[in-house]
């Protein structure tokens, strides 16, 4: 019986509403399940865009002459390198993405020192081989080196054969609470590296992933000298002052070719080879666009717009109630669920499509606008119902016919909005105009959820109301908004 099915759907909707309310609560703890092989770690919170929480956005472009073909692997590597640098800045949610074939966009929300960030991103990427004596340095350790530039093949200007690290003297008058930082001697710098490849060697019957490297000629001779006199000591590989790997010198290396052995998986070996090869950016990157926004600026706007939105929506709720009376009340309930659903999608995302929506000020405007469209769908339905009732149909038939006739209008008209939003979204993505993108996204989500709530939620409510109260309503035309 249709009535039972309707009640089941109604129950489903109420359940959904409860879930939505839970998702929408502030300070939601998120979902963290580690049970057996189920590992879920999902934060459920509002993600604010740059214009709301402040931060930095930079659009980088490959700085090569117009029309030069850009190797897609090069730009991918550049993106990875920029990403690694950015991750070291301590921003909670950095974003580094490729945009088209020549551009990389970087977004750092909430960053406190934009100038430092920009400098870091544009850093050249210095690779060094340092002499660590008999001390093993774990990967990830930060070190200071004495590398000051040197000539083109990366041979530091004062190459000595001393193995001992050079101690810096502490400042006069400062208490010696910590040991003075050790400055390591750079044997070879990255410019001297010719190539590095991940490969495998056979060792005692098993296959070991290693990284094979080759140095340029002048660097080779320095290297040969150093390895001959430092057998058994550590020669660490440093990238942007951080230890990447710290192998032992096992033998003199006269020809500038060597193997870095370690406990690598094939993936790690490849990653290290990439780091060595591309320690420096493979392509020069130039900044095309920069935007920095102070956090207070955004927060103020948010508060005002949320207030405005709340006022606007209240008027809408009131209007529907006054104009359509009982169906209007049902539409208002459906609208409330609509708002809950949208907000939940912003916080929870739609896995696997996306994990959350970054809200921007235009995004909020987009949501408010889409409520207008959600209302529109309800209005279309109600006007249809009114017409059918006036034409003499029974209440039950008027409901069904009203929905069916209105649905084609709703669907077709919403599609046109979706089309223009798709274009907007594409435009926003290509130019790093995250505000445009944010608006398009919230509007598309809004339009789609509005189709759902109009058809499912409003219809279920009305059917249920009719089933439950139909007889007493039949004669109260006023209540039905005729």
């Amino acid at each position, binding site marked *: 019986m249709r009535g039972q099915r309707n009640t089941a759907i109604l129950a489903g909707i109420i359940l959904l509403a409860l879930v939505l309310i839970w998702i929408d609560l502030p300070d939601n703890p998120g979902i963290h399940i580690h049970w057996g092989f189920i590992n879920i770690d999902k934060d459920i919170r509002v993600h604010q865009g740059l214009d709301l929480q402040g931060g930095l956005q930079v*659009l980088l*472009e490959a700085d090569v002459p117009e029309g030069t073909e850009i190797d897609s692997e090069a730009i991918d590597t550049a993106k990875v390198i920029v990403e690694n640098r950015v991750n070291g800045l301590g921003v909670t949610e950095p974003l580094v993405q490729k945009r088209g074939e020549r551009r990389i966009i970087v977004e750092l929300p909430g960053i406190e020192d*934009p*100038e430092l960030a*920009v*400098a870091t991103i544009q850093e050249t990427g210095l690779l060094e081989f340092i002499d660590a004596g008999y001390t093993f340095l774990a990967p990830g350790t930060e070190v200071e080196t004495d590398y000051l530039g040197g000539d083109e093949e990366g041979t530091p200007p004062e190459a000595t054969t001393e193995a001992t690290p050079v101690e810096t003297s502490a400042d006069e008058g400062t208490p010696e609470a910590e040991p003075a930082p050790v400055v390591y001697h750079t044997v070879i710098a990255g410019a001297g590296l010719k190539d590095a490849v991940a490969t495998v060697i056979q060792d005692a019957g098993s296959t070991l992933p290693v990284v094979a490297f080759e140095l340029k000629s002048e660097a080779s001779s320095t290297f040969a000298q150093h390895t001959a006199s430092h057998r058994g000591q550590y020669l660490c590989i440093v990238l942007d002052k951080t230890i990447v790997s710290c192998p032992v010198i096992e033998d003199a290396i006269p020809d500038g070719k060597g193997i870095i052995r370690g406990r690598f998986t094939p993936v790690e070996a490849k990653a290290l080879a990439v780091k060595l090869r591309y320690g420096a950016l493979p392509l020069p990157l*130039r*900044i*095309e*666009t*920069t*935007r920095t926004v*102070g*956090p*207070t*600026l955004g927060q103020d*706007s*948010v*508060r*005002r*717009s949320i*207030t*405005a*939105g709340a*006022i*606007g*929506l209240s*008027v*809408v709720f009131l*209007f*529907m109630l006054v104009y359509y009376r009982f169906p209007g009340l049902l539409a208002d309930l459906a609208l409330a669920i609509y708002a809950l659903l949208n907000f939940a999608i912003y916080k929870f995302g739609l896995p696997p499509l996306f994990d959350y929506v970054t809200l921007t*000020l235009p995004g909020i*405007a987009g949501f*408010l*606008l889409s409520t*207008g*469209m959600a*209302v*529109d769908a309800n*209005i*279309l339905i109600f*006007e249809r119902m009114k017409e059918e009732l006036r034409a003499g149909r029974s209440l039950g038939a008027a409901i069904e016919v009203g929905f069916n006739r209105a649905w*084609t*209008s709703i669907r*077709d*008209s*919403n*599609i*046109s*909005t979706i*089309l*223009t*939003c798709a*274009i*907007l979204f594409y*435009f926003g993505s290509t*130019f790093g105009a995250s505000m*445009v993108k944010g*608006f*398009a996204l919230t509007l598309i989500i809004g339009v789609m959820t509005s189709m759902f709530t109009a058809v499912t939620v409003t219809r279920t409510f009305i059917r249920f109301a009719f089933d439950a109260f139909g007889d007493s309503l039949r004669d109260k035309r006023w209540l039905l908004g005729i």
Partner: protein
Amino acid sequence: MFDIIGKRYWYFLISALLIVPGLIAMVYSTVTYGAPVRLSIDFTGGSLMVLKFQQPATEDAIRDVFISQGFTNPVVQQLGQPEDNTWQVRMGFADVETVDKIKASLADQISPIDEASSSFSTVGPAVGSEVTRAATVAVVIASLLVGAFIIITFRRIPNAFRYGVCAISAMTHDILIALGFVSIMGILFSWEVDALFLTAILTVIGFSVQDKIVVFDRIRENTPKWRGEPFETVVNRSILETLHRSLATQLNAMFVMIAILLFGGASIKQFIAVMLVGMVTATYSSIFNAVPVLVAWENGEVGRFFRRIFGREAATA
């Protein structure tokens, strides 16, 4: 039945009255500023800084600092109330080190800056011109896509092509009015067109077509029902039937937008204002533009009109 369609030539006149001042403003703007509307750095390239000082500042003092850093023609404007101490400066492209120097210089000579309430944007010239081109393309593609969509959706009725064209022409009318509005605002209040404006236009396109589809849909439904009646009467009936819905939806959308205009954050006010203008004209043009043109076309008036313009001998209708 109240005759809306019969008075269609009045509506065309009103539309002309709405569009012409905008066109004049756009011509004036092009002559004075080089573009029909004032363009923001998103399209022209350059930099925009919003600076909140801790002490009051003067326009000249600020401009001097920028000139000393090598910018030839900085445009300095005060934002908000005088006690906000917030200024906006528009100048050429700048990199982050230059911005640092500027801020240091400003702190030195005028007063330190409240970073939390300030912002900085710079757009390279290459990106700027790309954005302009892409924006135009986006609008054109959107219009064509939507027009095609209408033609496809209404393919079952005769002359579906006309519906698409009428929708596009009404939409163009809406865009022209919105552009005119922004142009006038640019001349009077220095409003600038940025990427958000493009968003507003595309949204207006979407909404505009949405509105027309609802009316067309009703015409499509009524045409077989009222076969005996002339087209004009059927259309008139359709408009009257959808009027309630159009007005109710328009009102609701306006409630929200007016609330944002009055109470919302400053940065999206212009965006919302443009959308408001666009949506009102969209509803207007559905009833008083798209459909009357459809009727005029159907009645052969369009053909006669063009023939008269181009001086060909009019065949007897």
